[in-house]
């Protein structure tokens, strides 16, 4: 438990520094709000339409493929740690594991989903 206590301390101090800096800036900096100033910045021209703009589907595909390879990497880390002690059979298991998922990537590539079009 105590190693995670240090990590918790790092998170606490890691939050204190930015909160402190922004707090000091908030106290010191002048506050003269007016509607013009709080306009969203559109290079000077009037904002057109709402900011929840419709989205391209590509974002979802990249997040999806990343999720699958992320979970794969999580499975592979314990395998990689123990690879030195285990024999050749563990390497073959890992390679089969990776090949199955690279096949998924090839499928997404062939379906043309990886283009940014």
């Amino acid at each position, binding site marked *: 438990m105590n190693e995670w206590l240090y990590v918790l301390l790092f998170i606490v101090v890691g939050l204190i520094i930015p909160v402190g800096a922004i707090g000091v800036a908030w106290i010191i900096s002048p506050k003269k709000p007016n509607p013009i100033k709080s306009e969203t910045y559109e290079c000077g021209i009037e904002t057109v339409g709402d900011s929840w703009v419709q989205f391209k589907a590509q974002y*979802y*595909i990249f*997040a999806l493929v990343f999720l699958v390879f992320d979970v794969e990497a999580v499975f592979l880390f*314990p395998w990689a740690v123990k690879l030195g002690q285990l024999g050749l059979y563990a390497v073959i298991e890992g390679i*089969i*594991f990776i090949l199955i998922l690279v096949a998924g990537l090839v499928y997404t590539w062939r379906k043309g989903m990886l283009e940014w079009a």
Partner: protein
Amino acid sequence: MTAEQIVFLIVALVTLGSAFMVVTTRNLIHAALWLVATLFGVAVVYALLNAGFLAVVQVVVYIGAIAILFIFAVMLTRKDARDSGPQTHKNWWVGALLAVASYLGLSALVLGWSGSSKAAAGLPSGFDAVGQLGEALTSPNAYVLPFEVASVLLLAALVGAVYVAFNRK
């Protein structure tokens, strides 16, 4: 009330509080951000259970990938800017009743169970959870089959999701 119990209670309250916010906030992006807070709380619970690998994997997989997928999905399925209309259907109280009933039933079951007041055994010295996990996942007489089937499951999920969502005929 030892220090460890106080820490556990704080973490449990934060996790359950943000979980409750996930299911009750109107704005879906806020719900996704509250989900991130809940997942972080659960990661701290794993750290309390000395399951360091699970805590880090929870942050990497859930907060790093699944929460981002949720936010992207909410962005993609957003027709109007504001979430109009009530977020819960008319007879939401039936759902609330069922949830409370299940909670009471489960906790009664847990408290009734004899082994539930067991103390946590100390970790054997030099216990390397990740190494043990690596051996368990790859040794033929342990969990090598679920290890390989998990990759087939992920492949099926990837192919299925790509086919369903973006099939350009």
